[in-house]
C-alpha cells in the first residue's frame, strides 16, 4: 500500500501508458541491447522520464533492476575533505544525483564513473540476452544541474569507456547541457501526456480503486489543472478521493498545493491594489515562500502566469501582458546572475505594479 503514484507506476515497457510512439522507440532500442547508445531523456516534470528509463532497463536486464540498494560511498576532494554520498544502485545500474554533491560533482562523477567503467561485467549467465549487460548503466538524474566541469569530465569518459558503460541522463531542459554531450547522446524527448491520455490513465486508477465518479468532467478538470504533470494529477486525484469519502462529484473542489494557492492569491492581490502596503504584504509572502524551499525562479514563473491569466477581466490588456512577460524574463536573468532573490522578486512585483498602472 503506497501512494497511488507509486502503486500505478508502470514497471515494464509494455505497460507504459502514454506517448506510444516513444514507447515503440524504446522497445526497439531494448531489442538490440548491445547497441544501446548513451541516452539523454528530456521533458517536463511528471512526464515519466524516470519511469521510462527504468522500464527500458527492465526490458534489457530483467526485473533485477528494481532490486535497489543504497551504498554509502566515500570520496576525497582535492582539498582532502571527505565526502559521503548515498548511491542508489542495482546489480545492473547505478544512479547519481548531482545536487546531492554540491560543488564537488566533478570529483564524484570522475571517480565513480571510472571505477565502474574500468570493471568488466562478468556474470552474463543470468540475463536473457547473454552479452546484453556487458555494460553497466549509469543514470544521472537532473543532468541539467551538473556543473560545467562535471560535464566536461563526462565527455571523454563517455567515449573511452563506452564498452563498459552506458549513460542515461535525465533532465528537464537541455539548455544547460553542453553541446559535446548532446552530440554523444541519443536525445529522447519525453512529452507530457495530453489531456485525454491523462484522463484515461486517471479513469483506470479510479476503477481500480473503486472511487465513485459522478461524471467524467471531474477527471477532465483534474487533467487540466495538472497541466500535463502526471504525478500531480495522480496525487490530486488521490487526495481528493481520500478527503471526499472516495466519491468525486463535479462540485468537488480541486486541491492544489499550498504554495501555488499562495502565489495565486498574491497575484490577485497585486491586481486589486497597487500600493506600498501591498508590496509589504507581498514581501512577507515571498519570504515565506522562500523559506519553504520554493526556488525563486519557480515563484517568478508561477507568479507571472498567475498575473497574465488574470481572473479580473479588463485589467491586463494585451500590451500589459507583453510588458509583464518582458519584465519576467528580465528578472529571471537577474535571478540567475545575482544572489539575492528577495530583491529581484520584489522588484518584479513593483515593476509589474507600475506596468499595470501605466496606460499602455
Amino acid at each position: 500500500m503506497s501512494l497511488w503514484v507509486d502503486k500505478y507506476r508502470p514497471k515494464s515497457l509494455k505497460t507504459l501508458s502514454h506517448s506510444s510512439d516513444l514507447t515503440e522507440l524504446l522497445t526497439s532500442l531494448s531489442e538490440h541491447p548491445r547497441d544501446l547508445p548513451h541516452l539523454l531523456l528530456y521533458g517536463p516534470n511528471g512526464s515519466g522520464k524516470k519511469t521510462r528509463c527504468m522500464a527500458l532497463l527492465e526490458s534489457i536486464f530483467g526485473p533485477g533492476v528494481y532490486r535497489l540498494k543504497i551504498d554509502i560511498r566515500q570520496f576525497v576532494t582535492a582539498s582532502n575533505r571527505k565526502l559521503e554520498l548515498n548511491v542508489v544502485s542495482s546489480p545492473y545500474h547505478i544512479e547519481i544525483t548531482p545536487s546531492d554533491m554540491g560543488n564537488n560533482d566533478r570529483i564524484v562523477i570522475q571517480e565513480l564513473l571510472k571505477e565502474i567503467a574500468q570493471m568488466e561485467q562478468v556474470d552474463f549467465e543470468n540475463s536473457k540476452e547473454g552479452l546484453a549487460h556487458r555494460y553497466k548503466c549509469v543514470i544521472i538524474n537532473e543532468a541539467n544541474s551538473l556543473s560545467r566541469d562535471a560535464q566536461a569530465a563526462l565527455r571523454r569518459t563517455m567515449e573511452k569507456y563506452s564498452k563498459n558503460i552506458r549513460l542515461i541522463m535525465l533532465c528537464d531542459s537541455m539548455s544547460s547541457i553542453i553541446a559535446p554531450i548532446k552530440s554523444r547522446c541519443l536525445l529522447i524527448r519525453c512529452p507530457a501526456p495530453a489531456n485525454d491520455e491523462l484522463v484515461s490513465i486517471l479513469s483506470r486508477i479510479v476503477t481500480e480503486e473503486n472511487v465513485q465518479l459522478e461524471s467524467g468532467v471531474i477527471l477532465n478538470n483534474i487533467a487540466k489543472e495538472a497541466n500535463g504533470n502526471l504525478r500531480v494529477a495522480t496525487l490530486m486525484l488521490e487526495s481528493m478521493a481520500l478527503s471526499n469519502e472516495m466519491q468525486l462529484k463535479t462540485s468537488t473542489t480541486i486541491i492544489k498545493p499550498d504554495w501555488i494557492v499562495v502565489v495565486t492569491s498574491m497575484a490577485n492581490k497585486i491586481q486589486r491594489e497597487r500600493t506600498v502596503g501591498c508590496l509589504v504584504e507581498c514581501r512577507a509572502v515571498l519570504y515565506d515562500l522562500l523559506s519553504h524551499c520554493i526556488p525563486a525562479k519557480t515563484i517568478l514563473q508561477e507568479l507571472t502566469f498567475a498575473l497574465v491569466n488574470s481572473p479580473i477581466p479588463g485589467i491586463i490588456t494585451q500590451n500589459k501582458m507583453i510588458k509583464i512577460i518582458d519584465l519576467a524574463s528580465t528578472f529571471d536573468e537577474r535571478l540567475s546572475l545575482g544572489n539575492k532573490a528577495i530583491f529581484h522578486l520584489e522588484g518584479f512585483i513593483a515593476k509589474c505594479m507600475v506596468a499595470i498602472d501605466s496606460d499602455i
Partner: protein
Amino acid sequence: MDTQHPLPTPSATGSPAFQGLPSLETLGESSLFDFGKQKEDTSSGEIINQFISSSGQTVQLQKKKMRNANETASGEFSVAGAYSSNGQEWKGDDSYGININNLLDAISAKSNNDEERANVLSSTNSKKRPQKLWVEKWRPKSFIDLVGNEKTNRRILGWLRQWSYAVFKEQLPELPQKTHNNEVTVDMDPLQRPNKKILLIHGPPGIGKTSVAHVVTKQAGFSVAEINASDERAGQFVKDKVHNTLFNHTFSDSPVCLIADEIDGSVESGFIRVLIDIINKDNKATNRLRYLANTQTKSKDKKRRKNLLVRPIIAICNNLYAPALEKLKQHCEIISFKRPSDNALQERLEHICSKERLDVPIKTINDLIDLAQGDVRNCINNLQFMATNSGSLNQISPEKNDSSSWDTNGKDISISWFKLVNQIFRKDPHRSPKDQFSDLLRQVEMNGNYDRILYGCFTLFPSVKYSDIGVMKPAEISDWLYFHDLMFKSLFEHNGELLRYSSSVPLMFFQKFGDIANKTDLRVKNMDFEQREVTRANLDIVNSICQAIKTESPGMAAFIHRTSLIFEVLPYVDYMISTDLTKIKNVKVKNIIIENLLGILKNMQLTLANMNDDSSEFRTVLGVTPPIHKVALLDQKRMKEAMNKRTGNFQLLLAKSEEKRVKKRHLDQVLREKSIQEDARNKRAKVSNNAGNTIDFFKSQYASMKKNSNNEDDSRPVSNSTKGKLSFISANSNAKEEGDDDKAGHKNRSSGENSRMWIKYKAGFSNAVRKNVTWNSLWQ
C-alpha cells in the same frame, strides 16, 4: 632582569604600598633615587615599581641590585646624601630615625630633578634612536598601573589565588563565607582549585585585557606563557605546545600560567578543541582523585595524575558569542571587561603626559577620550601621534588641536550600520543636501558593511515616509538593488574589486526615500537571516524524509526526489492525512481510507508521535514526524485549520495502527505456536515410522517448510493452490538418499504437470568448502 618575589596583593593584605617597600632605613642609605639608574630605566622604557601612596604621591622603587651604579652618578646625590648624614638628628621624631617630611621633600625635589633630566634625555634621545611606541612603553607593569575595572581585576586575581594551593602548596586563608557551607565538601576540588578551570576574559578591544592578564599573573607569582593569534594554532602543533606548557616543569622557579589570547577567531576551533580536551580529561582525573580520596586508598598511579590540570589557563577574546567559543564557554569562569571610566582614563593619560613632558590641556585629553570611546590603546596611540606631529618641541599648542582637526586625526569611528540606515532615510532640513550627501557617503564607505546597510535600507524603505506616485520609487530602486547584487557578487568572483561601487546604492536610497518627516529611529529586523534559518530547517526535514525513504525502502528510492517532494508529493500527502475522518459515516469507506492512509504513512516513513505544540509550551499534540506540514503548509489559515482538524485524525490513525500491530503480533504468535506444534508432531512421526514411506516423509518435510515460509511473512495468504500442485514426490528417491537426510538439506519443488524435481545436495561442513553434488554421483 632577575625574577622578583611576588608582591602580595592589595586585597589580601592591608597596606599594599608599604608591604613591598624595603625598610626606610635602606631607603635612606641606599640612594635609591639613583639618577643614573633612572636614566637607564627611562631609556629602556622600564619602570621597576611605582606606587601611589596614601597621600596620592607617586613613589618609585628600584631594586637593590642597582646599588653598584651609585658611584657613576655622584654629583646629583647631594640631597640624598644629606639625608644619610643627617639621619640621626631627628631620632626623636621618628622610630626609623628619619624625618618622613624631609624624606618626602627630597623625593619631590628628586622627581623634579628627574623630570628635568628626562626632558634633556628625551630631547637628546629622540634624535639618536627611533622612539618606542607609547602603547608598549606605558603598558601597565604592575597591578596599580591598571586603568579602570578594579573590581574585575580583583576578581581575576582572586581566581588566580585559588590556584595557590594546587600550584604553590600554599594554604589559603579560609574565606569567611566558606565556613557557612562547609558540609558541601564533596563538591570541593581535592586540590582546592577553582570550580571552573579556565578564565575567559572578554571585552571590546584596547581596554587592556591582555595587559591585565599579564600583570595579574605576574603579580600572583606565575610566569606567563602566551599563545596568541600570531602563533601556529592548528591541531597537533598547538596541542604539543599547550601540553608542554601546562604539564611539563620549567627550569625557572615560577610556575607557568597559560594565556590564550584572541581565541575568538574563526580558525580557532582546533585550539579550542585542545582546551576542551584538557578540561574533560582533567574532570575525569579529578573525579578519580576524589573517588580515591573518599575510599581512602592510596593511588600511586602517576600516569593518571598527569591528566590533572594544575596550572591556570586564561583565555581572552573580544566576542563572547563567537560560534567557536560555544562549547568552551560552559567550562569557563567568564569575566567581562568594561570600558574604563573617563576619569580613570583621564588620570592615566595625564600621568603619561606629565611623564612624557607633554603639556596637553585637559580639554584635549577629554576630546581624545571621547573619540576613542574608552579604547585606552587608541588614546595613547593618538597621544603619541599628536606629540610627534606637533613638532620636535614637546609642546602642543591648544589652537592647533581644536576638535575639528581631531576628527581627522582620530581613528575612523564608524557608527553601526543600523544607525546609518536610519540616517539614510533622514533628511536634515538645516543642512544642504549636498553636505549631507557627502557626509553620508563618507559614513557608508567608512562602515564598509554595504550588504548589511543595503538589507537594512531594503527592509526599512516601505515603512518610512516619502512622496511617490504609486510604487514608482520601489520599482526604480529595484534596478539599483540589482546593481548592488552584481557588485557584491564580485566579492566571490573577482576578489571584491567591484565592491566599492556598492556605496552608491545606499545613497540612491537617500535620494529617493530620504525625507524630513522621518525622525524616529526604526528597528531593523533581520528578515533575511530568519528566512535563511527557516529554509535550512525545512530543507533538513525534506532531506531526512528522503533519507528515510531511501534507507527503508530502496525500491522507491529511484523515484523519490527532493524537488518533487517539495513541489508535489508533500503538499498532497499533507492534504491526504488531514482528511476529516470523523465525518465519514460509511464504515466500509472509512476503513478503506484508513487503510490507505496508514499505507501512505508507512510508505513515506512518517510516524505519529507526540510533539510540542508551537502555540503553548506545555501541551503536546499528536503530529507527524518528520513534521511535513512545516514544509508543505504555507497559508496561515489553512495551517491552523489543518492543525486543529488533524489531531483527532491522528488519534484515530494511531489507534488503528496500534491495533494492527497488536493483531499482527498476535497472529505471529499463533502461527509460531502452530509451527512449533507441527514440528513436534513431525519429529514424533519421524521417530515412530523412521523406516516408513519416503514419500510421506518428503511430503511432511515440504509441508513444514512451506509453513515456515508462511510464518515469516504473514501478509502472504497461505495459498492452497500451490499445495495442491505439490502432488507427489517421485519414487525415484531411494534408501541411499534417506541415509543422508539428517545432515543434508533437501529442497524439493514440483511445478505444474511436468512434475519435475530438483534436488540440491551440498557436501561439506561449512559454506567455504561446501559444493554441489550432482545427482549422478549420488546414483553411482
